[in-house]
């Protein structure tokens, strides 16, 4: 492997032990993945923020690295934490959890990491440019950055993304290398795919079949191509494929930037045929009637998502607990427009900084969830010990109002 003079100096400890440790991590990963060089990164997005996942081991390590002088040298920002950093009491988070979670966030702040606490950094001022190399770690953010924005990132682990932020570099393997960005599977879609839950359902099916491959979608049903500007649809698709599979990049013929620039698939690619989304809805729906918890915002809600929820809830009152999870910045914009007030007047909550995938849901006693997110529906039984219903935003909000899934009362 070839290292530059600056990189060799970091590895030798010329910039102190904190940078040396970070460079050891970056170089070891380069060795493991047979990278010929390191590549400068434009930004880093760091997962491994929730105290639920880090535990005391992760907290201790982050505190020690920060105390040793670790500081990021490129823009770096956090994935969601285990709670809304301001309104955690309203979520039902315990004071013990909150105390440790705040220490985690403080350690990252000391290192210079922006406390965005979102899986959608591209919505809050950290959208990468086409072709930029990144060290991002949250799987749905990596998918969106690669596929929709044309940037280049592998799915980094939390510690490796932080090491990349501290050194400003990551190993040049995987999706940093142009030939690895070519399609491995052709996906032909013969059915209508309309809502964000439909895109999530399709992503669930494709992820199961392509694993860590690069699917190339052709939309063949009547109604034409989906639009690149329907970002909520692509967010749902990418999040689901990264949950049921490990897809970090996909192309959509005539839509996504690299499918327009000549990375056309070879004829002999394995074919994935999507003729119906019913198998996904069947797999992601537990046979529940009563619903006590409704989650919207996985990935974090966009401003349009919050507006939609506010419109559907206007003048209504929810029976189930309803959470809309989003970034702090989108929440602030929605608050200015009066949409947070509408949702909360109906009894719902708009929480920032967190989501149900990383919050300590098992402590909160919910039994039956409804969600519009295929990713959340995929993870809920194992991560949060929750049975779930999966459907459109409208179905979820109706379930929140009635306390029952559709058709039951």
């Amino acid at each position, binding site marked *: 492997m070839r290292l530059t003079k600056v990189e060799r100096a970091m590895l030798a400890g010329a910039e102190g032990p904190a940078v040396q440790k970070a460079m050891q*991590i970056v170089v070891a990963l380069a060795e*493991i993945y047979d990278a010929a060089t390191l590549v400068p990164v434009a930004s880093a997005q760091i997962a*491994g923020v929730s105290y639920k996942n880090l*535990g*005391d*081991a*992760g907290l201790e*390590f982050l505190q020690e690295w920060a105390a040793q002088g670790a500081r990021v040298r490129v823009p770096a920002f956090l994935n969601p934490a285990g709670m809304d950093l301001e309104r955690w009491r309203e979520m039902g988070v315990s004071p013990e959890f909150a105390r440790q979670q705040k220490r985690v966030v403080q350690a990252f702040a000391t290192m210079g990491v922006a406390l965005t606490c979102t899986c959608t950094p591209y919505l809050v001022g950290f959208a990468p440019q086409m072709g930029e190399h990144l060290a991002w770690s949250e799987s749905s953010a990596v998918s969106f950055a690669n596929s929709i924005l044309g940037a280049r990132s592998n799915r980094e682990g*939390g*510690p490796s993304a932080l090491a990349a932020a501290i050194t400003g570099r990551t190993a040049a393997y995987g999706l940093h290398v142009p030939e690895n960005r070519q399609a491995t599977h052709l996906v032909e879609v013969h059915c209508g795919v309309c809502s964000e839950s439909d895109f999530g359902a399709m992503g669930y099916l494709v992820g199961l079949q392509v694993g860590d491959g690069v699917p190339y979608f052709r939309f063949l049903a009547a109604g034409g191509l989906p639009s690149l500007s329907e970002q909520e649809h692509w967010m749902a698709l990418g999040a689901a494929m990264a949950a049921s599979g490990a897809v970090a990049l996909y192309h959509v013929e005539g839509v996504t930037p690299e499918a327009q620039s000549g990375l056309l698939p070879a004829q002999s690619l394995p074919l994935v045929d999507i003729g119906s989304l019913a198998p996904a809805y069947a797999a992601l729906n537990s046979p529940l009637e009563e619903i006590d918890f409704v989650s919207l915002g996985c990935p974090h809600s966009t401003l349009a998502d919050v507006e939609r929820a506010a419109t559907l809830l206007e003048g209504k009152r929810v029976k189930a607990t309803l959470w809309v999870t989003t970034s702090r910045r989108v929440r602030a914009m929605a608050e200015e427009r009066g949409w947070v007030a509408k949702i909360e007047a109906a009894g719902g909550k708009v929480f920032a900084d967190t989501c149900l995938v990383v919050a300590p849901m098992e402590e909160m006693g919910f039994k039956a969830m409804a969600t519009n997110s295929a990713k959340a529906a995929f993870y809920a039984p194992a991560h949060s010990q929750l049975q779930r219903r999966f459907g459109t935003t409208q179905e979820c909000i109706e379930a929140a109002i009635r306390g029952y899934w559709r058709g039951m009362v």
Partner: protein
Amino acid sequence: MSHKATETIRLHGRAIHRGKARGLALVSPAAVGFLGGVDPETGVVIEPGHPLQGECIAGRVLVFPTGKGSTVGSYTLYRLAKRGVAPAAIVNARSEAIVAVGAIISGIPMVDKIDIARISTGDLVAVEGEEVCIG
């Protein structure tokens, strides 16, 4: 089954984290995941049904094909090291990011690209740089 004291086998691999350590080998035929797989306070393998379930990895040269599980597992290795119950060294057939990062942040010598079938539980194993000596 241990090798005779007179014969020393030298295996050459790739240093993932350079260092020097000696200990008795603990060999797993299955992948090891640290988050939820090993008790961070005691170093005892707790994953149900794992071939090493109930074994303590503290001070052993831990030999396994590759890592698995959540990337947070790197921090579990760090905590084991803080508590003094980490393995003395790690030997893999093929390393992956989670265990490699864990070994680096915890200062545990680690070598991969080793034919781990040559090592048996109970062998005295020395790890130095990219070399693994058995016996």
